[in-house]
């Protein structure tokens, strides 16, 4: 790995390492489609401290990726999309920024890693170009220093033989190596926030673990906050300080990771945990499937979004939309009839 002395020279001005970095307030992202207004994100609020990791879990269509992209400023109010609520990043309202300010925010302040490392890289450009572009743009480095820094970055993300690799094309690398390059790009300017949207879903389990370990190590070193978006509860469980479970555009439950997995109060969180096959259980154990399918978000159900599939649903669930309410410090859930009541 690279020595600290060389790294200091390119490090941006020291930032504070504690305090609130991101505040999302009642965020709503409505996407206008031919079939009607799709309420992809429908009233999400949370805060994220510097250096903290929040895991966002949910099934496909739960709005977790749109949430990540809205925070990033990739969705803005326009002909196809309407956004309300606020995203305050480091004291600035992301939605109020113009294209130029957004570009300077991306890369230098917020980095993003997507699911598919092949489509995140330009197939006709060498690895080095991907990295030096952001370094020259945001840090004003010259050609040679930028290339040196790019080699350091490849080394940092554990790519062997970086001086040779820097002149390769994306297709010459394996999926795991490509994802390391994407991470190197996202972290080139040491952003304060990294949004990782399913960073390991396209990778094999052994590679997945390496990438997650790498993110953890880099976080410890650079002190960035991470939003880790995944459908895989296991991925999030080991890596996040706090977890938010999303269902149908809303946060169903949020708590610190231990509490959420050990003592879920929302029936959806509980059902999701019970639906996963476990290695320590004997073969042929019947899985607790959740019947039905997630709702159509053009016309979501009145009341609780999960009520049509919920084993505990009662009359009020079908009429009154439950709000997030605290159970204990930092543990919030949106349910009229929470489970595991006696155990707390």
């Amino acid at each position, binding site marked *: 790995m690279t020595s600290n002395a060389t790294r200091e020279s390119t490090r941006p001005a020291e930032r504070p390492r504690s305090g609130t970095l991101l505040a999302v307030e009642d965020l709503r992202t409505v996407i206008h489609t031919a079939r009607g207004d799709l309420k992809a994100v429908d009233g999400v609020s949370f805060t994220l401290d510097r250096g903290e990791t929040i895991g966002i879990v949910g*099934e496909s269509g739960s709005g977790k990726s749109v949430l990540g992209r809205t925070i990033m400023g990739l969705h803005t109010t326009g002909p196809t999309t309407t956004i309300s609520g606020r995203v305050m990043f480091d004291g600035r309202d992301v939605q109020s920024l113009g294209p130029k300010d957004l570009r300077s925010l991306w890369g230098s302040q917020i980095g993003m890693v997507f699911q598919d490392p092949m489509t995140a890289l330009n197939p006709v450009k060498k690895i080095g170009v991907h990295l030096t572009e952001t370094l020259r743009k945001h840090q004003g480095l010259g050609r040679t220093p930028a290339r040196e820094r790019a080699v350091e970055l490849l080394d940092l993300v554990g790519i062997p033989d970086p001086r040779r690799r820097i002149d390769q094309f994306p297709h010459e690398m394996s999926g795991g190596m490509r994802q390391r390059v994407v991470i190197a790009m996202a972290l080139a300017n040491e952003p304060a926030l990294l949004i990782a949207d399913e960073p390991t879903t396209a990778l094999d389990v052994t590679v997945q673990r390496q990438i997650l370990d790498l993110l953890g190590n880099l976080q410890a070193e650079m002190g960035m906050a991470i939003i880790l978006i995944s459908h895989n*509860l296991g991925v999030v*469980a080991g890596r996040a300080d706090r977890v938010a479970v999303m269902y149908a555009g809303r946060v169903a439950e949020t708590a610190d990771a231990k509490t959420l997995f050990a003592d879920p109060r929302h029936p959806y969180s509980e059902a999701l945990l019970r639906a996963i*096959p476990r*290695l320590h259980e004997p073969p042929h154990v019947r899985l607790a*499937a959740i019947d039905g399918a997630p709702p159509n978000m053009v016309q979501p159900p009145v009341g609780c979004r999960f009520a049509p599939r919920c084993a505990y649903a009662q009359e009020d669930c079908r009429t009154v939309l439950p709000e997030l309410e605290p159970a204990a410090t930092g543990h919030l859930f949106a349910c009229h009839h929470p489970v595991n009541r006696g155990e707390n």
Partner: protein
Amino acid sequence: MSGTLATQPPAVPEERGDERVLVVDDLVVEFPAKGGGTVHAVSGISFELRDGETLGILGESGCGKSSAGRALMQLPPPTSGSVLLNDVELVGHTGRTLRRKRAKMQMIFQDPVSSLNPRRKVKDLVAEGPRIWGRKVTEDQIRELLLAVGLDPESVWDRRPHELSGGQCQRLCIARALMLDPQVLICDEPVSSLDVSVQAQILNLLEDTKQRYRLSMIFIAHDLAVVKNISDRIMVMYLGRICEVIPADRLAEHALHPYTKLLLESVPEAQLPDAELEVEEVGVTNAELPSPLDPPSGCRFRTRCPLATEICATEAPPLRESVSGHLVACHHAEV
């Protein structure tokens, strides 16, 4: 959705003997690579599938598990080796003869949407198989099968695949396979493109279907917990070879091969707080999978293996039996 099945628990099947429905011997699958060379996808694997059994094939991408599954179906035929289905050789036959001999073996795939003709309706998709054989299919038969896989015939009857969810399409694929009254069902990553709640529905459905239709199953997947949940025995593959054949109930605690241990150690579910798994660290350093164009000599895992010694480079380890039904191919594993 799956209510119809849940209300009728499948009857416990009567004892079925150790009859072997599928015997695979020295199966080799090789493809010519671009720019010369040969991709060694599967390099001489032998196994058998007993009547009523589910055999899981576990491995990461590039290990040859899908190539092996498809070679059983002769899609395409293997480079060499033998596949006996009920003592009838499949390798070497083509066209009509092959279709007739293979009829008792059906397959479902990872992406259920793309394995269905987008222009056909559900009622026709289900009946497609027998109609190719020139058999008449009654509407009642179609309805019965749709119900059996947890689809409501009235609401899906005239729909096309794009109007169904991924889970519903996979149910439809299962119904299509069942229509031909198979004895062996090969499932290639049938749940890996589905959400966890739907994944559980499909796994339960496969388990019920297997009991009800007296199937034997080959279940190919990369997810350890999923494979363990559905299998009786698990075959772990790495770079075209079998590392270990392990009874499913031994997987979590008694794995012997360093690669199986590496997989167990990497499973993210082990991070869930109630996972009472104590996985020993294997200490694998080299992250990269060697190229299947030029696989390592001897044991194929040796380039990443912490136990590797000289013998591993020169001799391919044979499968050795540890306890009954548990085989491992490693020079250094303690059996």
